[in-house]
Each structure stands twice: as structure tokens, then as C-alpha cells.
């Protein structure tokens, strides 16, 4: 019972945060709505017994990435985006594609062959840090090493792109 209430509370919060992101004129308010959304998704991970991913979601997304976004927004000191309510072609296409995607998902969910087959497993043994670490160090060792190369490349690339170029040597 309490898990049902929490699920609906956090899914509504997540969707409200997403709506706040898409329809807010001020970029700082949009970023704060996105933080609400990230925290709610972390709570949904917890309700799926994925504890490690919930903690990582809060630390990496709501912590690191959103601080970076807010830092850049405040560094650039952007004006509010004026959102006039005219209905141009791009908005029409965006709305049609969004509604079509939702409708397609609804059709897909309706046509699952046997709904009884698609139930959650009784227990989730891969949500704990121990199981995740064991999987990372055995079966997924190569992708784990490669992701560190990706992070180093992103770090060096970001420094190279964002630094002030001085052409006298």
C-alpha cells in the first residue's frame, strides 16, 4: 500500500519536473525542475530495489552534472527565452511526434502477448553494491576499463575546447 502511494507520488513528481523543464522560460528554473526529476527517478530506482543506481543517480546526475549545468548557466548570464504562443511548423511537428510516440508506446504495451508473463521478478539480486562490483570486475571488465578511457578523453577534450586560445607561441 505505502509502496503504491510512493510510486505514484514520485512518478507524478518526475513528470512534473520534466514539464517544468520543457515549459520554463528561465534556464535556472528549468535546471531546478530537472533536479526534482532526477531525485524522483532515484526514488523510482529505489522502489525497483536498485539501490546502487539510485545513489549513483543522486551523486552523478543531481549532484555533479546539474551543478555543472547551473554553473555554466550562471556563468553565461542568459536572458529569459521569450516563449511566444504562436504555433509555428516546428512546434506542430514536435507536438505530433511526441503524441505519436506516446500512442506508439501505448499500442506496444497493449499488444504484449501475455501480460502475466511480464511481471517483476520476485527478488532483485543485482541491485546491491557487492553484486554490481562483482559483475563489473568479472563479466564487464573490458567495458569498465574502456569507460575510463572515454572519461579521460572527455576531460582532455573539454579542456582543449573551452580554454582561451592564444595563438602567439
Amino acid at each position, binding site marked *: 500500500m505505502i509502496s*503504491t502511494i510512493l*510510486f*505514484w507520488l514520485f*512518478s507524478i513528481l*518526475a513528470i512534473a519536473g*520534466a*514539464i517544468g*523543464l*520543457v515549459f520554463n522560460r528561465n*534556464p535556472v528554473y528549468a535546471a531546478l525542475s*530537472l533536479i526534482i526529476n*532526477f531525485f524522483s*527517478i532515484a526514488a*523510482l530506482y529505489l522502489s*525497483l530495489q*536498485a539501490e546502487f*543506481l539510485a545513489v549513483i543517480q543522486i551523486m552523478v*546526475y543531481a549532484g*555533479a*552534472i546539474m551543478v*555543472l*549545468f547551473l554553473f*555554466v548557466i550562471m*556563468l*553565461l548570464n*542568459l536572458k529569459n*527565452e521569450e516563449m511566444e504562443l504562436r504555433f509555428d511548423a516546428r*512546434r506542430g511537428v*514536435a*507536438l505530433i*511526434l*511526441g503524441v505519436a*510516440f*506516446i500512442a506508439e*508506446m501505448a499500442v506496444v*504495451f497493449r499488444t504484449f502477448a501475455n501480460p502475466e508473463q*511480464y*511481471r*517483476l*521478478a520476485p527478488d*532483485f*539480486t*543485482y*541491485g546491491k553494491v557487492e*553484486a*554490481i562490483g562483482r*559483475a*563489473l570486475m568479472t*563479466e564487464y571488465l573490458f*567495458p569498465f576499463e574502456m*569507460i575510463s578511457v*572515454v*572519461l579521460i*578523453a*572527455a*576531460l582532455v577534450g*573539454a579542456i582543449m*575546447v*573551452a580554454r*582561451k586560445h592564444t595563438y602567439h607561441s
Partner: protein
Amino acid sequence: MDFLTPHIYSYLAVSAVLFALGAIGVMTRRNAIVVFMCIELMLNAVNLSLVTFSRMHNDPAGSMLVFFVMCVAAAEAVVGLSIVLAIFRNKLDVDINHLNIFKW
């Protein structure tokens, strides 16, 4: 009240709604940073459905993929924001409608 208990469809429906909202944001917003945040929202929606499938089959592959998606999203945010900074330094503007020097 039985129809209210969270089923696998409920999680997938929330994920689909979040993804559609992120796509609408990418297509309608003009501020480059907000477009980036909408991309992060879409990545999160996909992560939610991956965790749901991982939980459904009690299989570590989905959780591992979410872990790697988070790493790649962090890298993408860092590189994208530095590109936005470099563009702002040159043009004093991050409106994607004004950034059309590559348009033929």
C-alpha cells in the same frame, strides 16, 4: 484499488512520458543549454526502462548498461557544455536558431 499497484507497465509508461517530454523539449526550445538538459532527461527516461527490464528478468545486464550510460552522459555533458562556452565566447549567444554558420 488493484489497478493502482505499480506494475511493469507503470514504470514503462512513466519512462515513455518522460522520453516524449524530453523530445518535445529538444524540438521546441532554442536555448542550447536547455536542449542539453532535455537530452539528459531522455537519457534518464531510457535508464528508467532499462532498470525496469533488469529488475523484471533479475539480470545484471540492464543495470550495467545504465551504469555505462551514466558515465557517457557525464562525459557528454562536460564536452557539450565546453562547446557551448566556446560558442558563447565567440558569438555572445547560445540561441540555436542563430547558430547557422554551417547551414548551406
